């Protein structure tokens, strides 16, 4: 079997196995194992476990359980609930107001962290049940959580941009600067979408009832006071990063610590609460990390099979205008984004794409931003949409993966629109850099 046929068989078998209901982690892992055995023989099998080793000992992933832990604590204490009650008062009579505030919270989280996953879990535990409780449209709420929670990898400090900078050997500072505008625009577009949907159809995001809105100021203040503690925690985390106190990963641990202190101040601290929170952390992490493990093994064997040479040859074989080649690359990234997580895509494609982009005379910083926006789409796109998996792990059980995938479609459309804008108008990202 040649690499071309191998590629199709590989993708085809993933699809078939997925359809049988085989868990995703075992689907990608099994395909990787079979291809390793079939292509290279039994002696090569440790390649697969070596990838597992590399994946689970990756330092930047330490932030994932920290954020999940923080989310569980906020959720199981009364902090999350009070926060959203307080925000609801702030939102006033604006339809969809709480969803917009969720996006603001998501944006703060994005500025605190650079990974996907933790933020989604956090929002999934905090914001989603609250929005549902307030009668918000299910699909709108899910979409807000998934899209908003993915922003962490666009906003600095973003691990996607750091890895891109390392692979492409370009300035991470410039990448961070260039990413800000598109990230803000993405968030504003999400907000505009939510507000317009709720404006035409207020049922989707019911405003606060009139009697509650006219509640005396004293009570409003009482409700809003609950915003203070989470805000202090957020500033602790952000402050510890931007003040040079903690590294990005350590800051996540600082956040957990802050939440614990908050829980003690509220006198909600019990051993049961702690036990529930840590148990939920291991359950959620086991599920999401093994999906990453499966994908990581697949990338290793595909690289060894010569997959990167195949992809590179295919692109270089194209005889077309540079901008079309860029579009083909974007298309390849989008398609791979259906099946792989971003680390896998970065390892697979960037070593091939970046030199081509430079050869075509484009700015690799700008391409990095294109890559990051493209990865925003990949977090949402089925069948391998990490945002959906992270959310599924903590969402109420009556929310299916199908629900989640239906919900993210409009947000993917927004992301692709921003991607297109960026493709044809590089200054949209670069004006801050130059």
């Amino acid at each position: 079997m040649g690499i071309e046929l191998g590629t199709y068989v590989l993708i085809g078998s993933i699809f078939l196995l997925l359809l049988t209901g085989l868990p995703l982690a075992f689907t990608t892992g099994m395909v990787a194992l079979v291809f390793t055995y079939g292509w290279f023989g039994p002696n090569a099998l440790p390649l697969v476990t070596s990838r597992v080793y590399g994946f689970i000992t990756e330092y930047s992933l330490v932030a994932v359980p920290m954020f999940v832990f923080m989310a569980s604590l906020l959720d199981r204490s009364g902090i999350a609930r009070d926060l959203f009650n307080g925000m609801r008062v702030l939102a006033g009579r604006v339809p969809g107001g709480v969803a917009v505030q969720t996006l603001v919270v998501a944006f703060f989280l994005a500025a605190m962290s650079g990974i996907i996953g933790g933020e989604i879990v956090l929002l999934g535990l905090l914001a989603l049940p609250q929005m549902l409780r307030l009668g918000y449209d299910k699909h709108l709420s899910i979409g807000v959580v998934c899209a908003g929670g993915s922003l962490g990898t666009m906003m600095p400090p973003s691990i996607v941009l750091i890895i891109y900078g390392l692979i492409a050997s370009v300035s991470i500072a410039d990448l961070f600067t260039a990413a800000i505008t598109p990230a803000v625009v993405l968030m504003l577009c999400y907000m505009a979408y939510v507000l317009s949907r709720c404006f035409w159809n207020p049922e989707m995001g019911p405003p606060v009832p009139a009697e509650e809105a006219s509640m005396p100021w004293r009570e409003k203040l009482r409700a809003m006071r609950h915003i203070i503690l989470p805000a202090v925690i957020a500033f602790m985390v952000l402050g510890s990063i931007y003040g040079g106190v903690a590294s990005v990963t350590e800051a996540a641990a600082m956040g957990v610590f802050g939440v614990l202190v908050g829980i003690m101040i509220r006198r909600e601290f019990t051993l049961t609460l702690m036990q529930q929170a840590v148990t939920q952390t291991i359950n959620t992490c086991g599920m999401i990390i093994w999906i990453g493990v499966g994908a990581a093994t697949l990338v290793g064997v595909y690289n060894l099979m010569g997959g990167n040479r195949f992809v590179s040859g295919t692109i270089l074989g194209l005889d077309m205008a540079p901008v079309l080649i860029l579009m083909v690359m974007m298309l390849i990234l989008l398609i791979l984004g259906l099946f792989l997580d971003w680390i896998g895509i970065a390892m697979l494609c960037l070593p091939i794409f970046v030199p081509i982009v430079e050869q075509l005379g484009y700015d690799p910083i700008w391409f990095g931003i294109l890559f990051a926006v493209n990865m925003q789409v990949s977090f949402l796109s089925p069948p391998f949409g990490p945002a959906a998996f992270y959310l599924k792990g903590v969402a109420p059980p009556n929310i299916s993966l199908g629900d989640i995938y239906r919900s993210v479609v409009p947000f993917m459309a927004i992301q692709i629109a921003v991607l297109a804008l960026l493709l044809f108008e590089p200054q949209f990202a670069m004006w801050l850099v130059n």
Partner: protein
Amino acid sequence: MSDPLRPSVSNENLPSTPEPDPHKAAEGVIRTGLDRVIARAADGIAWLVFIAMAISVFEVVMRYAFHAPTSWVHETTVILIAALFALGGPVALARDKHIRVRVIYDAVPPRARRWLDVFNNGVILAFCVGMTYAAWQLFYRATHNPSGAISLEGSGTSWNPPFPAVAKGFILLAVGLMAVQAALHLIQSLRARPDADAAEDR
């Protein structure tokens, strides 16, 4: 607590059908005795994340306030989280929480679903057995030097703890456990009757 806001909020806007408790759902479905033991053990293992958090905060305080960073926190955090990640695999399997695409699985009649169960549990078993072999190779080489004498692979830092060997041990433990779990699940699904299947539909 006597927060006046709370009752009005929670009563008024409850969805028409009560939401099942997401916390209960997170516990998943336990299928065998081994699964139950693993799920119970997970309650203890789960505290690793707490330890990792506590020592990370310790490092930040020591470094920032006392200018005395530790030499051990970063590596220890990584190995604690690696153990959590590795063992999270069997835990998620014990609770049947690994994410799957259920479009077809949910649509087919119970009889076909039973065969899908047999097939899936068989594939998981094959995967875990293959992984156990591969993990053993990796673990052996991390715990023995080329001459065959015991020698643990260290991290190579100044402290040089044998964490790489330990992490590979956790991988072996995790995939080995999952292989046994999958074997039990396979036996269970082979024994299951189609009519019984419909009743325990999840």
